């Protein structure tokens, strides 16, 4: 049976098509999920894509968190289903309290779009198994609310438990605390990050690098072997 990976479309999701394409390029079956539909249509994993759901009005991810589909996603994620939140999806995950902390306006107050260097700090999550721990990769970053924040205790806890999954290297682009670009939950099935791996999957497109494909091949392997 093919592995089915769902990508949720909220009103204002923008990178949902790209995420579906990345899933397909990795060899899994992409499944489009609609925010109003509680049914996950037997997918094996879910991607919450980038964009400006509900215009990012109020706070990024704040309104989407209450959508019907998220009710199911939250329940399933707690039961172990792999979930990847990219950019706006990461913001939805923190707003839903599936991941700790919150995202704030970039410290320079501008939207920033660039090819960002990251270090994979945790290569044991469901979404990072195809990387080496410590590996450096380039992934496009594009957001205005990308500054990761949590209280000191939470940060210490994340560090101690190896739950900082990705860190910015060669310069912090937005003032994120401890250069955090992405984190995972304790079980390693829920991962969120600000940069966009789905934009680094084809050699000709975007920055021309394919460093992001590993996210999607990682999950495929995990699900096939499970």
């Amino acid at each position: 049976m093919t592995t089915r990976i769902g990508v949720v479309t909220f009103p204002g999701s923008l990178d949902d098509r790209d995420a579906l394409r990345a899933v397909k390029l990795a060899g899994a079956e992409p499944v489009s999920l609609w925010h109003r539909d509680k049914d996950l249509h037997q997918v094996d994993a879910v991607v919450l894509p980038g964009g400006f759901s509900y215009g990012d009005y109020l706070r990024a991810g704040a309104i989407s968190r209450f959508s019907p589909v998220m009710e199911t996603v939250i329940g399933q994620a707690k039961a172990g289903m792999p979930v990847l939140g990219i950019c706006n999806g990461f913001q939805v995950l923190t707003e839903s309290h599936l991941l700790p902390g919150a995202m704030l306006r970039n410290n320079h107050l501008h939207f920033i779009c660039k090819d960002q260097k990251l270090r994979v700090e945790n290569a044991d999550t469901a979404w990072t198994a195809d990387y080496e721990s410590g590996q450096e990769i380039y992934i496009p970053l594009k957001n205005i609310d990308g500054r990761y924040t949590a209280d000191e205790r939470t940060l210490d806890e994340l560090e101690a438990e190896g739950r900082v999954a990705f860190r910015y290297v060669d310069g912090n682009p937005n003032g994120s605390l401890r250069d955090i670009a992405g984190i995972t939950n304790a079980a390693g099935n829920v991962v969120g990050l600000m940069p966009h791996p789905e934009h680094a999957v084809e050699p000709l497109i975007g920055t021309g690098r394919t460093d992001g494909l590993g996210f999607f091949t990682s999950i495929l392997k995990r699900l096939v072997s499970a």
Partner: protein
Amino acid sequence: MTLDSVKHAEQTPETELPWAELGLKENEYAQIREILGRRPTGAELAMYSVMWSEHCSYKSSKVHLKQFGDKAPASDAMLVGIGEQAGVVDVGQGYAVTFKVESHNHPSYVEPYQGAATGIGGIVRDIIAMGARPVAVMDPLRFGAADHPDTKRVLPGVVAGIGGYGNCLGLPNIGGEVVFDDCYQGNPLVNALCVGVMKHEDIHLAKAAGVGNKVILYGARTGGDGIGGASILASETFDSSKPSKRPAVQVGDPFQEKLLIECTLEAFAEDLVVGIQDLGAAGLSCATSELASNGTGGMRVELDDVPLRDSTLSPEEILMSESQERMCAVVEPGKVDKFLAICEKWDVIATVIGEVTDGDRLEIFWHGEQIVDVPPRTVAHDGPVYERPMARPEWLDALQADDASKLARAADGDELRGQVLKLVASPNQADKSWITSQYDRFVLGNTVLSQPEDSGMIRIDDETGLGVAISTDGNGRYAKLDPYQGAQLALAESYRNVAATGAKPLAITDCLNFPSPEDPAGMWQFAEACKGLADGCLELGTPVTGGNVSLYNQTGDAAIHPTPVVGVLGVIDDVARRTPMAFAEEGQLLYLLGDTREEFGGSAWSDVIHGHLGGQPPAVDLERERLLGEILISASRDGMIDAAHDLSDGGLIQAVVESCLKGGHGARLVLPDGLDATTFLFSESQGRAVVAVPRSEELRFTDMCGARGLPATRIGVVDGDAVELQGQFSLPLSELRSVWEATIPALFG
């Protein structure tokens, strides 16, 4: 206040209406009375006044724009020509592309963020109204002096607005322009381009055919946006001295627009739409009159059914409101429920406000009374047309006589070196990534090339790699020296940029930014530019698919340079063969294609080094541009070159520096025989490009150029980490990079 219904107007023929306050001339008001055979109602006057404005009626420019149709080159690629929201071009494999550039100059000066944001919003709606999925935007921008305090207010706001709207809409920004010049101080130019893709069978036109079909207004609620003038009509006394409570500024809601895109395209896909029209300038006045007159002519609208944001709006104000993010669709009665269901799915408010009738009148009702009864064509298409007086400006001879080749040239290598640094660091030539990094260029996952490449390139088919490339260009300094040639130079540069990436130019759109048409000198500039552009398009075989005119860009006597901006669209069969600009490999040979003459009129060198504008602009040779284009396209297709960069502002050295910085490799240049160093480095002769040729391809490439008669001069090699002109100077890349990157952040960061 009694409602000024049609009946009331008939009974009170002597009532004076404030036509002058609404911007109409006496003869225009008389024309309206004649059309109707009575005085207009307030609502009718509101409609005529906005639709007959310069902005909507093109009354001063029409006679000149006609040439774009009359002289249009025969082209198999045109599927829909001028006259629709946007033209449509066949790009092969069953795909069609629609693209258009539009101005939002004045609003962006008043409120930079919202003005620029709603500029993007407006042009995107034009594209979706054609049935196309928007796939990219571009933003040609012009500001006053870079170090002027007001530019600090305008530029960051405009950039944030374009980014804020475009990013939230999910459209990659793949290019544009940023130009600084004193002449734009009180009149910045904010032009916006959008390109969309569809299959041939999905093209939709704005018309309301089919008696009984329903007119559906969907999108944002209607508020009092941008209707300063109409408030006069709403007040009982028509007292224009009372300050208007209505905002002249429109606020954009990109989230709403994103929903409009999805819901419109879904309705198209389900074949639910007979005709469609976006609401932009002149709002419902424009949408209803255009839809009706492009159909059979009859339409009945119940204005009470328009969903309002502000319940105190008068019918005149509702008709004139320019509230953003609204569309109007004509739908068969049997499909209305399905259409409304799609809107509901996307949380978009949709309301049936009227229907197509078998008459030939546009009739609008308010509280049960008829307030508009007009032949829709007279509102939408048969407005006044003027042949305004024109005169070649008397200052032009003196300006052209002030030859730039007499300007002092550098005495030695050291001075040349200093001039190169100064040029590269000047605001117009400096790195623009402080601006472009505020734009999402990755979204939709099809961006092959974006800033700072010669053109933006988008893949439109994942399987075959079919793609389109677009560049926008304009040079107001050239056009000031000679508007006819200036327009052709804009066309030539844009054409060259597209060809440099390996795409074949197919068609153009243009935005003509000019000063007041009521000044004979400004009108002459406009006429010359139109003529130049039409002649140029005929010669290059690239038809004009549509565009926009922005007049009155002047503050008092301070007029902008005439600034025709041209956007050229090209097609490439497989984006894998695109040619980037970066010199990425050591040892590759640098060839200069084309002829270099002593041409400094209007050049960046004259401006930056000497603060000079005068003489003749560089000579136009469109036959040469076409040949250069063919060579660049063949070389890309056959893999003969690894990089190409067209030569324009700043000449050869600017192009070489940009390609070196992008690739991270230096270049060793040798002065060709017969050229002095200043001409070699800084001349802006047209029809030129610099290419990087792998040694293995050198013979094949030079043979091809020789056989086709294009001069190709070997000028150096990609090498080291400096840009060096042998025997004259050497500039480390690190030094070039630091001055090139520092300028814009220092001014605006």
